């Protein structure tokens, strides 16, 4: 095993240890967060309003292939879909999920089915839709669904490229709240200009913790924040050492 591989393994091990340690330590006490993300508060409010008003909630999971790095953000989207499906199970018009990848569509149906079963509500398999297999066909399908269903709020949490602008535009036309986060840098730049509530960088991955998707989400967020500061410090130290000629 060479040095980079050893470092990688150590990093993963340390991260896992920090997650489990945080989960154990904060299992019976309030977990501290380094920052607040107001967008998630507004989403919770939008969910409540949508349930009261009988309007549809829409969650789009993007095009993340489950056997690629894009799967991570798709998992976050699925966790939030589970929370939303449970929160809005009592609604006349339960949430609907769209995706641009077939495995993701199957998982979204599974998640909605599980949430409906848990809440004792009816399940309609059409609530988990694959709207297209190419980026633009997927975005066009999701946009038409937003329009047809007159959704009250749209959450776009997954892997999106620039095509996400077609979906946010549809949300804008129906005057519904659009919260969006992606792991794709181009998608993030587009979302900053088009979405009402864009999530920047790793904020998307904090979604589960802020939406109450489980204790381990909060623990992993604590680990993320700690490692973020460690990396910042390491970069600063490296820059200073480079500046003084040590490195």
């Amino acid at each position: 095993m060479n040095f980079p591989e050893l470092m990688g393994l150590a990093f993963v091990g340390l991260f896992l240890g920090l997650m489990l340690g945080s989960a154990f330590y904060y299992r019976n006490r309030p977990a501290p967060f380094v920052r607040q993300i107001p967008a998630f508060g507004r989403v919770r409010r939008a969910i409540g309003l949508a349930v009261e008003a009988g309007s549809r909630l829409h969650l789009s999971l993007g095009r993340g292939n489950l056997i690629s790095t894009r799967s991570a953000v798709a998992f976050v989207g699925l966790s939030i879909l589970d929370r939303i499906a449970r929160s809005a199970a009592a609604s006349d018009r339960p949430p609907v999920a769209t995706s641009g990848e077939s495995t993701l569509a199957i998982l979204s149906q599974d998640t909605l089915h599980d949430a409906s079963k848990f809440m004792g509500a009816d399940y309609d398999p059409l609530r988990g839709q694959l709207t297209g297999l190419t980026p633009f066909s997927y975005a066009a399908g999701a946009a038409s669904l937003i329009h047809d269903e007159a959704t009250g709020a749209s959450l776009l949490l997954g892997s999106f490229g620039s095509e996400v602008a077609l979906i946010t535009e549809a949300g804008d036309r129906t005057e519904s709240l659009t919260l969006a986060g992606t792991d794709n840098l181009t998608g993030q730049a587009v979302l900053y200009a088009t979405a009402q509530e864009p999530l920047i960088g790793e904020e998307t991955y904090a979604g589960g913790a802020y939406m109450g998707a489980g204790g381990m989400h909060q623990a992993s967020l604590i680990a993320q924040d700690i490692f973020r500061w460690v990396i910042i410090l390491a970069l600063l130290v490296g820059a200073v050492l480079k500046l003084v000629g040590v490195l």
Partner: protein
Amino acid sequence: MAEINCPLCGKANPDDFEVCQYCQARLKPLLAPDSAEENSLPQDETGVEEPTSPAAAEIPEWLQELRQDEDSLELEPERSSDELAADISEATGDAGSIPTGTPDWIYEVEQETQRDFDHIEPPPPSPAEPGPEPAALPDWLESIRLGLHGTPGLASSQATEPVESTGPLAGLRGVLAADALISRSRGPATRPAKLRVSANQLVHIDLLRELVESEGKSQPLPQKPSISSEHILRWGIALAVCLAVVWSIIFPGQPAALPAFQEETAELNRLIEQLPDGGQVLVAFDYEPGEFAELDAAASAVIDHLMIQGAYLTLVSTTPLGPVLAERFIEELQPVHHYTAGVQYVNLGYIPGGTASLVMLTGNMPRALPYTIEGLAAWGSESQPVLPPLQGIQNVGDYDLVMVLVDDPDVARAWVEQVEPFISSSSPQGSLGMVISAQLEPIIRPYYDANPRQIHGFVAGLRGGASYARLNGREELVRSYWDSFGVGLFMAVLLMLVAGLMYSTYPLLTRPSKSDSEVKG
């Protein structure tokens, strides 16, 4: 000085004090106005008279208002209870049989009570038996009774009252008749026939009536204008950009010069120039059909250069539609080279699993991608030799150059992080080059700037493709896009600039001036 004792605490106060100096209780009663003063005072608009007593000034405001309300009740034009009941029944839509002047809930209680008493029948008449003799009062007692009730009228009325004929009170006059009381029907309670309602209350009644009436009616939703300012903005921008581009195509001016080459473009050019004769190149078509215009234009000169060098091409893709795009690219954009499938190039099609399966290219390629897009055994069979582009190839490290045409940052990163280390470690001559969409430049450049390089040269977007075309003199496709591309970009910048200035300055222009706000304040 005379003193007056407080009626509340009993302490002495000077007699000119209005209130007790110890407990603040009023020492003197409030005086009512005399009639002469009352008539001389003006009336307000509603006809309510102003308080006139000297003490009125000391009456709290809330009390004065209360008194005014009471006065207005008396002074308002009276409405009969019938009118009011008619109003209410009209408002509720119930022209029921409730007697006028009786609230419906009282009426219901009365009706219930009446029903309770109705089933009680009067006691049957007692059998005729001789009653006791009427009591004979002595004279002295009779005179006392007359002295107590000495009114003749009263005496005469008593004379008309019946004499009890049964029971222990037999013989007494004026005994209350229990059965008569029970059986007597109870009429509505006597109340003032007319309800006094103020103008204010009338307004409230009307308002309540409207509310009750409107409750059952469906309210039409506010109609959205079919053409809003947002629509005009969108259509205006679309028209401006489209017209600018179309204008530049229909009326082409002096063609603009293609941009000078960048270092990374020149480096890619050098890599292709250094390919050995009959070099083998793996070309990945990893872009979506929607991006074909940009990537075709950017990659056209690069693939053209590869064909000029006589390279054998192996085409693969991690997107399902990539193989079709690759076929189209070779046949329609590079027809002059007459590349033939299975001879100069081979299309191995889609790599199932996408970027996750890129790692399989570093292992056993014949196992990962055994067939061509036409269904032929690419790596040879008993009846067919290995196709020329694949001779001597077992994994991605055997290629002289790996060229990736990509529009997705994740896919580009996957190639760099999963495949490039294997290429570098397998062969010192092996290189990774890319043709990327312009949006990927900030993501890909760090891999080029790294030491050692993880990408050995790249072309970014139409601008990069134009500069590459300028290097090898193959400008046809890029030239057809370049001028209109510039016009479209300029129009977009112009629109953003105008809107930016407008949105920045408009709030300043519409903000009320300081003097205005002071006046309003």
